[in-house]
């Protein structure tokens, strides 16, 4: 038995790796630059010039912390024309612009030269200050305005890749430079910038884009995400560290541990309840197949089975938590808005929370309940049709004993195997039910994360629910072995 469990866990490992990989692929392909958003949320506005010092430092810090300064994965399929070091460029849009330039021209050394000259030109503009003598003759505010424009144009040049846009930016910069005579000392740098770009355009080697190459990286984002970087910024998924939330900048594991309780509570409660109720109903319907009870319960169960949970939830809220109809139960949350009183004990808390739990619990329970009852009924009908049941009846055993003692245990097998379906369904369903009832669980957190493009959170939840599903499978296997002694996992 232990050996079997061990074997099953071994099989889970590749599945888990694939789940983490999928989650990781999703987060890497997510649109937008998280660092840009995190920093701009903290410090909105600001001029181009002030952006340089403080903001850039912050950006670099967050990029390091989120591991975005590393290549994505162990292996990447790239072309001969692409350098190994492109990932080191901090700015996501600059990186894309460079990559697109490579895709167009294929000559990295020349593109690299051009890129560096844009940098030196921008730095020269940042350091540029006209002599105070010269300034006297011109309008001061106009000069600073022109300089700001120049800085902006040359910075945006770095994230531009279309030929006509680049040339028009060159024209703008040229015109701005010629507006005041004291800009003349910047002129040579601008000329070399233009020359470098012309070199890029004239010495194309596009064929290099069509030769694939595999690049290997030992340190990469996936590795850091999974194993951590030795505790400097993250401890890694394997040590229970899911990374940092893009929205609150809190560690994601803290958020998840504080929320997983309610999700697990509702899922487990609903499944236990559904099993307790569905088994007798299924058995009774099957034992009196074709009776009025059977027909009636089949109809009701079928309707429940097809009922969308979000509709039922809305209907329940509309009826029982609506001041216009019956205001019997609260509409949202899991505890009073003011929190629990301090003096109250555990049972007091349960009593206070109970009205909040009733409606979501109904929504959690009914669908798995309908599903399970139907399966129980079918499997009982199959079992009752077998020879040994006929023998038992022929012996003259009372019907009650035949059903509960002889047929019951054997008809349990299918309902146990579907535990592996019911559990993930409950976890998945939590997304909808928790957001309708605003339960502070993982499901509503997932929806919240999606609204806010908080990808690390989404990935963490995806991975964790995948893991829980696998645990559910293992549990179903073990139950199966307990109920059916014929199954020995050797």
């Amino acid at each position: 038995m232990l050996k079997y469990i061990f074997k099953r866990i071994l099989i889970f490992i590749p599945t888990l790796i694939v789940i983490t990989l999928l989650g990781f692929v999703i987060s890497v392909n997510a649109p937008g630059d998280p660092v840009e958003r995190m920093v701009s949320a903290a410090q909105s506005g600001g001029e181009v010039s002030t952006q340089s010092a403080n903001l850039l430092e912050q950006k670099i810090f967050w990029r390091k912390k989120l591991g975005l300064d590393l290549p994505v994965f162990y292996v990447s399929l790239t072309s001969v024309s692409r350098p190994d070091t492109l990932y080191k460029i901090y700015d996501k849009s600059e990186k894309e612009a460079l990559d697109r330039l490579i895709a167009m021209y294929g000559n990295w050394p020349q593109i690299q030269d051009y890129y560096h000259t844009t940098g030196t030109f921008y730095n020269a503009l940042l350091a540029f200050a006209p002599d105070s003598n010269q300034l006297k003759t011109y309008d001061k505010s106009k000069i600073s305005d022109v300089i700001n424009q120049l800085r902006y144009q040359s910075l945006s040049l770095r994230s531009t890749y279309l030929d006509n846009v680049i040339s028009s930016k060159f024209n703008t910069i040229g015109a701005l430079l010629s507006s005041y005579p004291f800009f003349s000392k910047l002129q040579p740098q601008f000329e070399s910038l233009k020359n470098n770009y012309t070199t890029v355009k004239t010495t194309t080697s596009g064929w290099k884009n069509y030769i694939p190459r595999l690049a290997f990286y030992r340190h990469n984002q996936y590795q850091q995400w999974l194993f951590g970087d030795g505790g400097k910024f993250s401890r890694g998924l394997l040590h229970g560290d899911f990374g940092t939330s893009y929205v609150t900048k809190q560690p994601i594991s803290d958020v998840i541990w504080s929320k997983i309780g309610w999700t697990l509570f509702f899922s487990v409660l609903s499944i236990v309840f559904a099993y307790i109720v569905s088994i007798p109903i299924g058995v009774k319907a099957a034992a009196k197949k074709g009776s009025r009870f059977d027909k009636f319960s089949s109809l009701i169960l079928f309707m429940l089975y097809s009922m969308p949970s979000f509709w039922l939830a809305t209907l329940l809220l509309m009826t029982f938590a609506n001041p216009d109809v019956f205001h019997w139960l609260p509409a949202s949350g899991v505890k009073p808005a003011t929190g629990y009183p301090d003096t109250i004990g555990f049972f007091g808390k349960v009593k206070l929370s109970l009205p909040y739990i009733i409606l979501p619990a109904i929504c959690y329970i009914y669908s798995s309940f309908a599903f399970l009852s139907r399966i129980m009924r079918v499997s009982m009908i199959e079992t009752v049709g077998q020879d040994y049941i006929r023998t038992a009846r022929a012996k003259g055993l009372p019907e009650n004993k035949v059903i509960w003692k002889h047929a019951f245990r054997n008809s349990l097998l299918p309902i146990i195997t579907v535990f592996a379906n019911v559990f993930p369904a409950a976890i998945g369903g939590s997304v909808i039910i928790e957001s309708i009832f605003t339960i502070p669980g993982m499901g509503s957190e997932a929806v919240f994360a999606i609204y806010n493009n908080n990808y690390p959170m989404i990935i963490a939840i995806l991975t964790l629910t995948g893991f829980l599903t696998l645990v559910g499978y293992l549990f179903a296997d073990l139950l199966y072995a307990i109920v059916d002694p014929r199954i020995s996992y050797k």
Partner: protein
Amino acid sequence: MAEETEQHTTAIITKADFSFKKYAWEQFKKNKAAYYSYKLLVLLAVIAILSPILATDQPLYCKYKGVTMFPAFSFSNNCAVKDPKTGEIENIQYDIADWKKMDVESIVFAPVAYDPKKTDYDNIDYVSPGSKQGFTNKDGQTIPMPTRFRHWLGTGKSGEDVLSGLINGTRISFSIGILSMSIAGFLGLVLGAMAGYFGDKKLQTTRGSFWTFVIGLVFAYYYGFSVRAYSISDGAATSTAAMLQQLCISFFIFVIVAALFYWLGKAIGKIPFLHTLVYIPVDSIISRIIEILISMPLLILIISVAAIAKEKSLINIIIIIGLTGWTSIARFTRAEFLRVSNLEYIQAAKSMGFKEFRIVFKHALPNALAPALVAIAFGVASAILTESALSFLGIGVPPGTVTWGSLLNAGREQYSAWWLVIFPGLAIFITVTIYNLLGEGLRDALDPRLKK
């Protein structure tokens, strides 16, 4: 000889008037619930197809100042009308024109004369189906609503007609259900058939051609998708159609490169050492993929993928549901193929020297189709449920699209507007029930083992 026998058997079958299809249809008809849901489904399909002319504020026919127009059927969106008296040219834009207040000679409106998105200013702020509804006539007077223009199922917050939204939602949920299950059905049937038919020990190839093909797949991916990554993402930025076009080109390149390497592999497979025969564990590979997919919480996976899509569109949702929903179809098909591939007639086909491809798709597949069909019917139900759950949460569907789920979500803002909760929910419920009943009916009719 073979043909003769075939003819002979067909003759017997026709004589006894017994064909499996006919038998299954008879069985299906006996199941009243399934049979009526089939009829209801046909009705819903008709509504879905005709929805652009069933519920629109553009009239089907209109005669205005001597000019005859068919706005609801027309592809162009405007019409220049010349006033016969003053000679002024008036340009009428079909989607903007306020048809109900125009001074027309004759006009025929659609059965539901409202657009699902447009505001009816006389009936804003949740007007219930039974209450008084206002209508501003041509002269600018507010009169009680004429029966012809009533909002039979009420209006939403900004006066959108609920019935019109429901009718247009029918089309959306139908296309989602059917298109996504076409993808899933194709994947499930092909992969399930391969897994069940070939197993782990049937598909043999030389070592050389196997590895050449595997390397070829990397190259095919590189030339099809890596090199063209920016073309695809630029296409996605312009429009869904452009993206699909770029994806098709990429897929075409992928197939061509893969095929080239396949032929190359055949040649390489003749080299000594590389010509050793190896088995391809098709079943293990596909079963492992299925196992991984079913241990994913699908709803969470779907919403995360829908969330990263740059542009929200229904096509994305269709593709995601299609790519994740094939597992049960594949499992049923696989089990059926395991059974069928050991039957005598398949061995007979093999002994006649038919190609594997032909045996799988022409001989084995038709017999293994029944369980897949059942799984597809249930799959459509769950696809519709998934879509409405997504639009209920407001994830994945483009903003402004009126679907059953989004209508229901609008009802959550105002519980006193019960018609916004009851009717869309009922529509989802009925459709899902129909497909589930259909699936059950099909299962009972197609599986002779259940025959009493």
